[in-house]
């Protein structure tokens, strides 16, 4: 398998990594995801890494990079379902994935993105009514 499927759920893109991430697969995902975000005008990305059992510093940095790219493209990214062993490895490697949001499972990640969007909408409303109010 050379490509990780990217699924669209409304305004959110769901990336579910079900295989051990090879370096070239991760690089391909970075490219595909950036293209899909622009093409689908998504404003949220969920990366599910429940099945990811082994990480190294490269994959750790890739996750961080993918999240940053999505952010630049104005899509909030949440990494969900990280395994304890993976978390410990990343911390030991000194990668705390600053700026990447995390949630325990897809459900909570989805909820997080929705509350974010609601807050952003509210802010937009306030800005829109600002001169009048």
């Amino acid at each position, binding site marked *: 398998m050379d490509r990780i499927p990217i699924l669209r759920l409304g305004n959110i893109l769901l990336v579910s990594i079900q295989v051990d991430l090879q370096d070239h697969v991760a690089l391909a995902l970075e490219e595909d995801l950036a293209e899909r975000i622009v093409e689908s005008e998504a404003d949220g990305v969920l990366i599910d890494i429940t099945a990811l059992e082994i990480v190294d510093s490269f994959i750790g940095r890739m996750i961080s990079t993918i999240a940053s790219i999505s952010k630049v493209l104005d899509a909030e990214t949440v*990494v969900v379902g990280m*395994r*304890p062993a993976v978390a410990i490895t990343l911390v030991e490697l000194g990668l705390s994935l600053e700026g990447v949001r*995390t*949630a*325990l499972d897809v459900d909570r990640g989805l909820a997080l993105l929705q509350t974010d969007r609601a807050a952003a909408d509210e802010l937009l409303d306030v800005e829109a009514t600002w001169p009048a109010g």
Partner: protein
Amino acid sequence: MSVASTPGDWTILERNRQEIIERWVGAAAKNVAGRMTQAELDHDVREIFDAIVALPHFEGRDLTDPAYADLRSLLGELARARARQGFSPTETATGVFAVKEAVLDMLEAQAELEGYQFFAAFSRFVDDLGLFMLDSYAQAREAVITEQAASLLELSTPVVRLWEGIVTLPLVGTLDSARTQVVMERLLEALVSTGSDHAIIDITGVPAVDTQVAQHLLKTVMAARLLGAECIISGVRPQIAQTVVGLGIDFGTIATKSSLSDALLLALRRSGYDVVKRANRER
């Protein structure tokens, strides 16, 4: 050659078997006063005695000789038993050294000159036995300590579910790298298995926080964040707060609270609960 000129011969011991055993038990009993019955001691002593006289002559051999394997395993077993029963090294070794006293007393009573030559060689042999027993004792104690450390590690890291989505980890005792690893794993496993997104790490029972302990705590919190859970550190005592600031440790955006109840309140608030006091206290 007479019996006396071959000091490695057991004839003297065998001839006086009953007397030596009685004196030996008597001498050994002084050291273990009340903690072993006469019958147990008698049994042990007889076993060692029989094992010794069954051996080939000890002249020119030491305890590592293959012929002495049976005696070695017997002594090792006794030493391990003593270590587990909580006897001191002295008490363990004197159990064997007592045989010298017993043989010497017996020889004095008989006033045989050849006996003393035998005794000089025998004494060295018994010293070897005693030292071997001490070695086995030390090994057994070492094993006991390792086991205890392992079980302590198991016991000392309970993760308790306080509320829907809130778990707490009361830490008691000093945190070292090995323990932190276990603590971290337990906490993360518990967060995943209970689906909790808030964890309270209570450090009331941690005697001191230095840079290393703080580092461990920060790592645990970072790992929990990667899973999507937020940690609160509670039980920060005044002295600990002073040390932490004095050492220049920065807890950054991690919430710290002085008591577990404050931390629980914060965790409940963050999960969307409000704790409200009713005006009417009756149910």
